[in-house]
């Protein structure tokens, strides 16, 4: 980084484009923030990384008991535990990533006020922490598939990385938006858990989307950016046909939210140090 040709200009009115060059030069900071947050998250916990696995496992058991057994909700010809766990894997990544990224700017205010770096690193890193938890939980998912004798179609295994990517996109948009709103209006701190709860029931995670009989309602639910991720993640497991228009709708909605979120973040980030 010892480069004599570095030149930068701070102008009172400048453009709001993403500065890829700068983000690249700070690439190690993504790693260090993620690494720090993972370390802190699991320090002084007796079970450590096991928590990343335990949380979705316990939720799976509860949902299986109430929704699978008691309410007998259909599960796209999958064993209900597999159905719900595959959904929860991504959903938990989304919800914990969104919660921590939305609070990330406020939680790191002391750093933002004292030192310069591309602030986008902070919400992105909190989402990467959630991705780490996902990988831990995924390690449980594989033996679970074996246990239930669930066939996996390797022809469409590409859907898994695509689903993970879509989850990250779906988290990044609202995460950036909420984190910058949170700096300005602390009200959002209380909105976030409520919002996630509502979204959870509006997104077909613990029930299949065709549980709804009206196509119009299906389209409304497909606006949730997490719908496409969850649906694609289950693709190698089920024989159900993918509803392309619904999935496309969800993908577009996710990308649009991401663009809005990052744009708003960039537009307001300069003033975080003054407000936080």
């Amino acid at each position, binding site marked *: 980084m010892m480069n004599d040709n570095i030149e930068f*200009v*701070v102008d009172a009115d400048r453009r709001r484009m993403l500065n890829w060059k700068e983000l690249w030069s700070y690439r190690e900071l993504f790693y260090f923030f993620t690494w720090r947050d993972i370390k802190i998250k699991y320090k002084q916990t007796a079970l450590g990384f096991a928590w990343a696995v335990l949380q979705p496992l316990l939720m799976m058991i509860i949902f299986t008991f109430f929704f699978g057994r008691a309410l007998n909700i259909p599960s796209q010809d999958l064993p209900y535990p597999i159905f719900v766990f595959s959904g929860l894997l991504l959903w938990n990544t989304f919800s914990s990533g969104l919660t921590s990224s939305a609070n990330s700017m406020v939680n790191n205010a002391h750093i933002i006020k*004292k030192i310069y770096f591309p602030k986008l690193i902070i919400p992105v890193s909190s989402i990467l922490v959630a991705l780490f938890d996902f990988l831990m939980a995924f390690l449980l998912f594989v033996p679970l598939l074996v246990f239930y004798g669930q066939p996996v179609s390797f022809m469409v295994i590409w859907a898994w990385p695509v689903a993970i990517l879509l989850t990250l996109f779906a988290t990044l948009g609202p995460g950036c938006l909420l984190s910058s709103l949170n700096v300005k209006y602390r009200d959002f701190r209380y909105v976030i858990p409520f919002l996630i709860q509502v979204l959870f029931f509006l997104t077909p995670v613990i029930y299949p989307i065709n549980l709804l009989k009206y196509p119009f309602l299906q389209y409304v639910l497909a606006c949730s950016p997490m719908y496409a991720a969850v649906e694609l993640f289950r693709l190698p497991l089920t024989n159900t046909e993918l509803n392309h228009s619904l999935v496309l709708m969800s993908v577009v909605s996710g990308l649009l939210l991401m663009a809005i979120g990052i744009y708003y973040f960039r537009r307001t980030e300069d003033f975080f140090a003054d407000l936080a």
Partner: protein
Amino acid sequence: MRPILEVRNIAKLFKISHQSAGYLSLRERLLGVFRGEGLDREDFWALKNISFDVAPGESLGVIGRNGAGKSTLLKILSRITPPTKGRIVARGRIASLLEVGTGFHPELTGRENIYFNGSLLGMMRREIEGKFDEIVDFSGVEKFLDTPLKHYSSGMQLRLAFAVAAFLEPEILIIDEVLAVGDVEFQKKCMNKMESVAKGGSSLLFVSHQLGLVSKLCKNTILLGNGTVLAQGESSSIIDKYMDSVGVNNEFSAVGKANAQPYFFKRVRTLSIDGASAATYSHAEEICIEANFGRNETIKNVHLLAAVNNKNGQRIFSSDICLDDYTLSEDENTFKVTIPRSTLTPGTYSLLLALHIPNTVGYDMKDQICQFSIYDGGSEFTHFENRWFYGDVFVRCRWELVDGNNHQ
């Protein structure tokens, strides 16, 4: 040579909203919209039209009273907050130390904190690895490297934090009074490190209230006041200006309960030759020091001492008399001592007064009291001005040509 840092017409506006918290609540914002009124806000220009250049390798001090805009300027230069108007061009890596140990986390170990903090300051992992041993050595915490930071003493945390920052190699280093803390020995270590950073070709921007430190580290200084550059130039002359603007107080009087010491000061002030209290003198004027003291006992061999300090607090000379030769009253004794004309060079000075038995016991001592300043009223030294530091005293020396053989 092109300046490494160009600052052009920087201004910063803060909207002060009249509410306790710095952030807004959404409800107030919404209510405001419905009532069709804006928030009750006041404009405050923290900086107005600041311009200056920093040359490669130059050390620039920034001084000014609290609220002059120093911190805001530093935040803008370190890109933490954007300017409302103006433009900055930097031709090199800027590292700012507005705080020692930014991002230090109590749960992480010393080693982990070195990596995280170093990375925050803009070092690459390779760089940190390369300098790791030096950093640890400088901080002196090698025994506790794998202990969480929360078990460190505050002194250890500080040493570790400064050690990481000391091994940055930016082209431009911005430092805010971080040295105001820590023990004397470590401060000295930090000072040396900063001097070597400056000598190593990096530019240094140093903000401090410690004027002596500024004059030692920085060749040039800018004086900020009310968000504008009041003066800019060679450090010692700017520091003098600052001292003047702070308002010198040339009178001292002891307050509070009666002093139980055998001898104690009551009032000290500086007078001009006509007997009026004065804080500024031409260098060709005599300066009178008037000291009033009381006593509770009569002791042999007590001396009254007056000394003059320069603006850095260094003693220039002392003068004393033995009180045995005078008959003293119980509570009011006024002595006057006169400093001959053309003794002190232009600058700012303060006094030290003491009542003591030399090398044995001190009864009362007042240091850094009675500031006064001297201006050049046209002396034989005037031609040095702005080019040469006078030194603190004028000395009339005798010059002669020794090698007379070549000269008849």
